[in-house]
């Protein structure tokens, strides 16, 4: 075991290599550039391939081809580039292809800016492209968690034959933190992919990577099958972290960078002896509604803190289902929530009566 300092974007790359990913197709965009820089150097060392595409549209379709051929493959981008990839992500979901897509979210809409944001929550958790589909979305909040989640991201993609998205932002990508890495890189053990279209090579049946179901009856069956898969993911894959939620009067809900700020806020309250906790969703989809719903039986109110105009708050309200008030505090456009401001906002709600 070695403890080293690593940048978040580089940790994504190293995590991917250690998870057995050997193919990266991407197009430059800020603020995720250190990741392609890292992999352009790192992948050839392990016999892999880094290929710079002519656009995000091409990148995601190269991912489609490589995933269909059975490879562990990924791409990364940020807001505008992820928007361009949405058609391809829909095709990947429709054809049930595993891959990992990293979105280091920046300020929007439009060109917005390159500062950290969480404004792509809706896009990530509602499918994002056309048609009825879901992408499993993981939201790390530290560099170590990035490394750990990359392995899970690829494993979950293969397990469900579904795209998995890692949602971060410029803060997570740029910051350096100590991480613990195994000295030895284990050779990747990949599940057998008997469905991959690799050329028949003596196989007695043909494999087809496809999302077209021209007969409505068949397309309905396909959608119902996908629906069952998403239901299984909702059942088994909800992940979250509880931070001092025990006996909490108020629970803050925040993910990623915003959750780091909220931990400081919880610490401030706890130092004063006030029972405030944090629930940090690690999967944004499936959203950890089981935990939110359970907390709604005991807490007085929720305050969601997001780097957007209020997106995850809708999922919290769905999970709370009217049982408790759910308040929202957000900073947008690349601005970060500051612990002191969140504290003040929370205090106002607590002392003013949550209802």
């Amino acid at each position, binding site marked *: 075991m070695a403890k080293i300092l690593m940048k978040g974007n580089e940790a994504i790359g190293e995590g991917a290599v250690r998870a057995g990913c050997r*193919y990266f*197709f991407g197009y430059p965009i800020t603020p995720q550039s250190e990741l392609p820089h890292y992999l352009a150097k790192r992948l050839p060392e392990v016999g892999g*391939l880094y*290929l710079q*595409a*002519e*656009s995000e*549209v*091409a*990148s995601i*379709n*190269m*991912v*489609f*081809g*490589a*995933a*269909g*051929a*059975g*490879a562990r*493959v990924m791409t990364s981008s940020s807001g505008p580039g992820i928007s361009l990839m949405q*058609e*391809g992500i829909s*095709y990947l979901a429709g*054809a049930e292809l595993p891959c990992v897509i990293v979105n280091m979210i920046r300020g929007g809409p439009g060109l917005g800016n390159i500062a950290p944001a969480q404004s792509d929550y809706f896009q990530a958790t509602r499918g994002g492209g056309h048609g009825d589909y879901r992408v499993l979305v993981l939201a790390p909040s530290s560099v170590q968690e990035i490394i750990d989640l990359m392995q899970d991201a690829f494993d979950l993609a293969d397990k469900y034959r579904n795209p998995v998205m890692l949602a971060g932002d410029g803060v997570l990508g740029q910051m350096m933190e100590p991480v613990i890495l195994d000295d030895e890189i284990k050779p990747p053990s990949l599940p057998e992919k008997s469905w991959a*279209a*690799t*050329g*028949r*090579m*003596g196989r007695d049946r*043909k*494999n*087809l*990577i*496809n*999302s*077209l179901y021209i007969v409505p009856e068949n397309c309905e069956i396909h959608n119902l099958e996908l629906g069952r898969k998403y239901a299984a993911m909702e059942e088994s894959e909800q992940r979250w972290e509880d931070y001092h939620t025990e006996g909490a009067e108020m629970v803050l809900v925040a993910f990623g960078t915003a959750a780091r700020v909220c931990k400081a806020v919880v610490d401030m309250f706890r130092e004063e002896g006030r029972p405030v906790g944090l629930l940090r969703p690690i999967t944004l989809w499936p959203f950890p509604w089981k935990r939110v719903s359970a907390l709604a039986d005991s807490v007085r109110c929720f305050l969601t803190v997001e780097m957007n105009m209020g997106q995850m708050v809708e999922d919290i309200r769905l999970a709370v289902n009217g049982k408790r008030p759910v308040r929202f505090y957000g900073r947008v456009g690349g601005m970060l929530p500051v612990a002191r401001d969140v504290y003040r906002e929370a205090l106002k709600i607590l002392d003013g009566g949550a209802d």
Partner: protein
Amino acid sequence: MKKVFTRPKSLKDMPFHYCPGCTHGIVHRLVAEVIDEMGIFDRAIAVAPVGCSVFCYEYFDCDAYQASHGRAPAVATGIKRVLPDRVVFTYQGDGDMAAIGTGEVVHAAARGEKFTVIFINNAIYAMTGGQMAPTTLLGQVTTTTPYGRSREVNGCPVRMSEMLSVLDGSAYIARVSVHDPPNVARAKRAIRKAFEVQEAGLGFTMVEVLSSCPTNWGLSPLKALKWLEENMIPYYPLGEYKKPAEVG
């Protein structure tokens, strides 16, 4: 008795959905014959486009992919980079490859991706109802150029073979036609060469096939072939635009 002409094994035994006289069927057959004759069926991978020929993934009995509109060259890039010893080909129409997918094919050619594009140029969007394609000829009437394609409004038709042949990454680029038996034979030879150049790892390969669309041109199958010969070939000259020295 010996069969001198029969259905190639690489084509699944099922009827094509194409309109009467549509030359997609001829080109499908030529590609399948080349796969059979080269003995590469087990290593062949087809990438289907969006358009009339989307179902070619059913017809070619090898492993296949259905790509999003215009992106077949990107999908083929992903496949071939993972499986470099396979024979990968895309089958794309002019709307798919020369309009929405221009970026993907140009950059695949520029990178010298080692797969083959079978490019069907019939000067029209057929599946969606006969709209103007980038390859529609000046003056040609389509459902979106009811007064004929105008240079002022729509610009001029795109010559893809000429365009792609100037890129250093392309190795074999040919334009052929299937309007009569001698040209069908030439088309097959070009497809075979393209696959051989791909196998030799020499770079990007494309065969542009001038094809007819009797339904959307509003002509009988025979008159459509005549129209192709008289109108398309003068604008889209046939020939090998690029070939490596290794290929005779």
